[in-house]
């Protein structure tokens, strides 16, 4: 079995995700980009899991966990975004500099 094509796809998705996280100003899109990065990781997990013929399907199972955790994370993230939007009438991450000294 050849895994290269999956790995290339995963790397592309991860890179696009990083790009989105770093460049996008809208918080919703930043969260979406994080999801893209996680998807890339999941593809890697499933691909390698299949590649090494794991009897316990650890890679696939792990991907399922990642999806679950990602769903929870997005739920909380979107809730925060909604709250911030209510307070500030904006979801622009450049304006969210509350952590500044």
């Amino acid at each position, binding site marked *: 079995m050849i895994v290269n094509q999956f790995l290339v796809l995963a790397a592309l998705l991860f890179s696009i995700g*990083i790009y989105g996280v770093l460049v996008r100003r809208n918080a919703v899109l*930043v969260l979406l980009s994080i999801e893209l990065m996680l998807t890339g990781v999941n593809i890697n997990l499933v691909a390698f899991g299949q590649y090494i013929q794991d009897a316990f399907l650890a890679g696939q199972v792990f991907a399922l966990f990642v999806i679950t955790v990602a769903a929870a994370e997005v739920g909380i993230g979107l809730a925060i975004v909604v709250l911030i939007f209510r307070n500030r009438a904006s979801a622009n*991450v*450049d304006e969210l*500099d*509350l*952590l*500044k*000294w």
Partner: protein
Amino acid sequence: MVMLATLFALGEQTGHEVAQLSDGGVLAQWAWLIPVVPLVLMFAIVFFGKRLPMKGWELAEGAMLFVAVYGVALFAMNANEGINYEGSIEIARIGSFTLEWGWVVDGLSIMMYAVVGVVGLAVFTYAKGYMKGDIRYTWFFAAFTMFAGAMLVLVSAPNLIQLIVGWELVGLASYLLIGHYWEDHANNAAATKAFLVNKIADVGLFVGVIIIGVTVGSFRFTDILNAVADGDSALAQVAFWGGLALFIGAMGKSAQFPFHVWLPDAMAGPTPVSSLMHAATMVTAGVYLVGRMFPLYQTDGFAIDVKAIMIVVGALTLFLTGLIALVQDDIKKVLAYSTLSQLGYMTVAMGAGAYTAGLFHLFTHAFFKGLLFLAAGSVIHAVHSNNMSDMGGLRKFMPWTYRTFLIGSLALAGIFPLAGFWSKDEILASLSFDSSHDGGTLAMVVLVVAIAGAFITAFYMARAVYLTFFGEYKGHGHPHESPRVMTYPLIGLGVLSIVAGFANIPGVFTGFTQWLAARPQVMGDHHAEAINFALAGIGLAVALLGIAAGTRLWKRDAATQQARDTFRIPVLYPVLANKYYIDDLYMKGVVGPIKGPIARFTNWTNTYVIDSVVNAFGAVSVFLSRIVYQGMDQRGIDLAINAVGSATGEAGDALRYTTSGKIQEYAAALFAGAVLLVVGFLILT
């Protein structure tokens, strides 16, 4: 219980028998309870007394009952077989010197146990009635129990160290009791006076103990007296000064001239205290000490020269203080001066080498003087005044007090066949014996003084009886007989005052002589082998003469009463009333200079010499600390600490710009870090 058993076992190990004398068996082995029980119960009274139904009196009475029963049991046993036992437990060891707590059970200490117990029982019973309603009732009985317990510690001591412990405890207890009515400043002053005069004399005791103890290498009486018996030459060299110093200590406690001044003032305490103090505890301690160390004074080559001093001091005391008793109006002071006079007799007897006679007088005196004080207290209780000028005619109101007081007075005056007659006759006989042996002319002179003293004794006791009980009542209110709790002890002591003298009748029954001789060492005692009828006759005649003179002078009848009361002998009276100006002499000669110039000088020294030294030390310290503060602390240590602080601050200043608050910048840094790690990892592998 384990502890008790241990004590018991130790006592058994260290006790030793002496030939021909019994070791006293279990009764002697457990005799350590005699001083311990009152002292333990003293604490019980202090802590729980107020909660008890009789406010702690029952514990005090219980303690004295125990001591009395135990003492009398030992007394009977000693009379039967002669006991000599000494038990001890080691408390501490300092180098080669061991500190021991022990208990001596021999003829002398048994006599004291019995006297303290019996007189104490009577006085404690009486005190229940006398002290009724006192605001410090419980505390009084605690201190009173301690007083008796301390005396028992002293008496049971097998070594000089324990004797000092008891000696000082007695002093402390007497201080507390004399100052019992401390609301009145005069009573405090009397307590302080008693304490200080005793303390001054105690210096003598300490010096004597150190001289003798260090020379012999042991503080135990047995070792010291054995050294005397063996003719220890080192001890013989210092024996005079050691013996004299010990006698000075004894003079303080037994109130011998010129240390007698504290005793009359000690009348400030409640009457039961005076009674016990004058009869069984405290003042007998000095005579007891001389009796305990008797062979030291009686053996040739040792402190035998001290006897001459003893006999002179005793004679001065017995005669001079007897005269003062003639002019006192306070009934307790009459008795106090008579105690001084009787203590003079005891000292004279000791000085004449008559161990038995001196202690026999102590024994009989304890009963009749205890009785007289209790009876006087009963009168005071009824009249609410100490002064005989407020009394008179009490014979009708207080029959039992009158009868017992009369018995006590006759016993004290030495009327046949009451107790005082036998013991006083014994002293006169021993003086006569001494004058024909080593006492010489001095003893002869003292014999005359003692006979004159007997006259004075009878004279002032007759005066006290007539002024108190005869004539017309001159006080206020209606006096009445005291309650039975007070009269029964009087009757008990009255009986003892009658019979105690029969314990030693020379040539007929010499029980007391043998009881006291139950000791390991030979006493070298001078005691009469038969009654000296001539001397006994002279003594009795003189006493009767004294009573007759007293009757002539003071038997009041309505017509002449007033005139006689105000009559004063011109020169003699002021001298006697001012107690030979001895108190004034002490006040001006000793207390005055100490309170005046010496105190001022000490104050000056303190302010200008000691304080300036202290201040100089302070100034130097301040100077040094300033150097340390400004040089080392401010410039050295602070510099380093500040450098660390400012470096941290500046680093923080520089770094704070990195926290921009922009999430995406943080994320970029995060990813850059991750990439760096991966690249580094790849290069390394």
